[in-house]
């Protein structure tokens, strides 16, 4: 790791802590709501992934924004971690540049897709509830 990477490593650690909190919340809602009796975010009952529950959460701005923060933190943490693992294997300089560019492109593309989906799902859910 070069000195230039130090701020990126710090952001990697900060992103990890953000993920710990937000993904912990996500897992609590999606996979531990039964054992923890934490089903307030799935008021329609049944599965947390049933459309009624998904739409309920999509309408809440907290979930829209926290989803986008989690998306950005997860993509940065994961793709930067992958880059470090690949660079440890000692690829030549040209390949290192290609890997960096490819991972950056992948991260930006998926961030754009996820952000679009979060806002559009909110719009769809709000429109359906106002009918």
């Amino acid at each position: 790791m070069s000195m230039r990477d130090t701020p990126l490593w710090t952001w990697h650690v900060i992103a990890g802590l953000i993920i710990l909190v937000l993904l912990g919340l996500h897992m609590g809602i999606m996979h531990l709501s039964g054992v923890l009796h934490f089903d307030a975010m799935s008021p329609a009952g049944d599965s947390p992934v049933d459309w009624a529950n998904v739409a309920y959460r999509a309408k809440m701005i907290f979930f829209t924004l926290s989803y986008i923060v989690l998306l950005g933190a997860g993509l940065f943490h994961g793709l930067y971690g992958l880059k470090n693992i690949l660079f440890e294997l000692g690829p030549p300089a040209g390949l290192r540049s290609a890997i960096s560019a490819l991972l950056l492109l992948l991260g930006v593309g998926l961030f754009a897709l996820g952000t679009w989906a979060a806002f559009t799902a909110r719009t769809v859910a709000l429109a359906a509830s106002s009918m």
Partner: protein
Amino acid sequence: MPEVKRYPNRLGIKGWFGGGRWGVERYLYTLHRLTGLGLLTYFLMHIVVTSRRALGAESWTAAMATVGAPIFKVGEYLVFVAFAFHAFNGLRLVLVELGVLTGRPEEPVYPYESSLDVQRPFMVVMMIAAAVVMLLGGYEFFFMAH
């Protein structure tokens, strides 16, 4: 900016699996990387699949029906297990990195004190916490109807 001198990584990925004289933390390092790569693979697919909610109820329900087969449930639980390990081990790594679990540097006066005296019990606590979350998740995944 001066370029860092790089040494050849002779062992490559093989080096992940041989702990040598290092302790159990060396194997946690390997597991941390493996679970990280698994979680990243799942996460990239998860972004694409869950983006279907933007297309409305029908599209979402169809997507969930596709990934609702029992084999996906087992796979999803493995992702949950990887998450629990990666999260608690990651918290340990952050605290070690920040120096919280390594203590202050001291003169090597007998009886010697090691940072392992603090770090290793915390590692055990974190692994127990991860195991508890894995068990709770397993109960919810396989024994509670959704």
